[in-house]
């Protein structure tokens, strides 16, 4: 095990971590604004992956150009879900909300299972088998593409919250929902938009992830848990934290796979989650509640 080997492992972990980060952003945005924990997160991601899969196999649109389409579709789904279902559950106790999203998750996963069957699907691009060589460093081409696109989407999101009126209004809602109502903001609509943005992030991440992994319906609960690990690590509600958490999980999976045993790497992630929950429940970049 020489230096180039570790360089390879670390770079793969970093790149995958960025895509994980984008996925977790969606969860984080929703929680940050309306304190709803989206337990159907992984399921929406799987839906997005299947959508990208269909767009590629039926219409020949590759996942990166398909990204706006899928993200847009998921935005509509998220918007409607919030408007007609979740909105009625904003005031109830936390666990009821949680269970509601769990029921949404169960329905989505199994509808997907019914439609697509249980087998893994993957897409073959010309780039699928290609890689860049830089000295001893071998970088997987699609992984590089996915990571950079993820970074770009995250940047767009940040700009949206920072520079647009809607983005600012949403931030106002998050800080003080009552105050936002007082100044005449349509909080319900803003919430629905936020939920839509959250699911759109998941949609974008799903497209990119399809470049890296095969999709099957049972991925959903894995990704839901992974999403939680990441946002709790980085801090629920913090955008930078989600990205940082994604990179940390990507790296820790890669390194623990090398240093301990690959089959133990998920235990490592859960161990990390337990530690963070206990030592810094607000996450690394999260604010104290």
């Amino acid at each position, binding site marked *: 095990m020489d230096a180039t080997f570790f360089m*390879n492992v670390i770079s*793969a972990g970093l790149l995958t971590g960025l895509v994980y980060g984008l996925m977790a952003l969606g969860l984080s945005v929703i929680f940050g604004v309306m304190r709803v924990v989206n337990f159907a997160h992984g399921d929406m991601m799987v839906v997005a992956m299947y959508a990208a899969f269909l767009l590629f196999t039926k219409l020949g649109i590759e996942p990166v150009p398909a990204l706006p389409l899928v993200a847009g579709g998921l935005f509509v789904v998220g918007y409607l879900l919030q408007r007609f279902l979740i909105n009625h559950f904003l005031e109830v106790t936390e666990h009821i909300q949680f269970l509601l999203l769990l029921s949404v998750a169960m329905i989505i996963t199994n509808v997907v299972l019914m439609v697509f069957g249980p087998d893994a699907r993957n897409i073959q691009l010309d780039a699928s088998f290609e890689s860049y060589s830089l000295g001893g460093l071998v970088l997987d081409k699609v992984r590089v593409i996915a990571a950079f696109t993820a970074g770009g989407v995250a940047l767009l999101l940040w700009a949206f919250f920072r520079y647009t009126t809607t983005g600012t209004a949403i931030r106002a809602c998050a800080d003080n929902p009552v105050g936002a109502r007082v100044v005449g903001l349509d909080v319900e609509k803003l919430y629905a938009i936020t939920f839509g943005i959250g699911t759109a992030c998941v949609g974008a991440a799903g497209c990119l992830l399809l470049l*890296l992994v095969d999709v099957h319906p049972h991925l959903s609960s894995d990704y839901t848990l992974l999403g939680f690990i990441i946002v709790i690590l980085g801090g629920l509600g913090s955008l930078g934290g989600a990205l940082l958490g994604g990179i940390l999980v990507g790296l820790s999976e890669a390194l623990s796979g090398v240093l301990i045993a690959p089959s133990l790497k998920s235990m490592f992630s859960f161990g990390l989650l337990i530690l963070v929950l206990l030592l810094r429940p607000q996450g690394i970049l999260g604010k104290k509640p």
Partner: protein
Amino acid sequence: MSDNTTSLSASRTITRRQFTTAAAAGALVTTTGLPLRPARAATPLKLGVLLPRSGHLALIGQACQRGAEIGLPMLKDMGYSVELMNADTESNPDVGRTQAEKLIREGANMLMGAFDSATTLAIAGVAEQKGVPFVVNIAAEPKLTEQGFKYTFRNFPSAGMLGKGGLLLYKDMFAATGVTPKTAVLLHINDSFGMAMLGGINALMPKLDMPFTIVETIAYDPKARDLSIEVSKAKAAKADFVMTVTRLNDAILLVREMVKQQVETMGITSPGSPGMYDKQFVKALGKYAEYCSVNIPWFDPKQEMAKTLEKTFEKAFPEESFDLNVGFTFEAVLIAADAHKRAGSNDPQALTEALRATNLAKRAMIGGPIKFEANGQNMNLRSAVVQNLGGKPTVVLPTESSEAKLVFPMPAFKGRT
């Protein structure tokens, strides 16, 4: 009615109720209290087929189901009389158990299944309790024939046999090509099948005096989404060739990742696991699937029955792969039907005795006549080297069954067209 020994206390009330009918019919009372039927060979065998048709093993379960059904007309022409009662185990041992009980209650004389080891064990337990014979189509778990089951018969190698047959074939491979690698890296899935295979391989490597050593063993999670780290590790081991113990999806992930990371090796071979001979594998990897090889029990291209079966299959399911799932499930139905014919009865006890005396020389898979040892294991099973050549899994060894010559070392990924 002394034959009523298999009755369980659980169903005593029911069997007692039916006692007079039973006496009149001169037949046995089955353990579950199902309505009695006269035991004549003219009554077709009711074979309960338990396969994972949904859940995470659905793909394979459905392949097995095709194997069970495709052979029915053939068996009828051969004078066998069998009816299938299908049940879905949902890839879940608990469901497998209740479905087995349900099939017995609904009148199954014999059970067959169930591909995955966990579910098969659960069903074997039910079969044992109820005294109903159970033919295993596919399942490599050693315990199935080590546990002292009296009603379980397996026409598939245990993990140990699979590993041994697979390892021994490496010697033949090297002898056939005159190339003997010195080192190997072993990548295996960390599930019950992978662990059983690993145990077998580790125990046998020194005993069989293999010409190569395994320099690194890498286990990966069955739920792994991405195997890049595992492949990096394998690459760093710098071994002459790669051995894999996989399922289907992970086999695709592994080889794709090897291509990406430019792992050039003498061969990607499996000492006996699914995955690389599957149509999905070839479809997903195209030219990179070529030359991957698996040492596994396979169809005997020289057997008449295999040829007929393949023709029927290609006609009915041109899109599906004709592989060992189909083959062994077909053979399991054949074994069941043959026992039924010889027993001349639908009585579980008589069927079990007939199964024990099985001797079927005409079969579809490579190996000698199907015969069971006292523990219910078929003793005449043999692995073949099956290599993907021209997009089709092809028998390359043993020579007497081979359709083409083994390619080893394989050409590099780079520059394949």
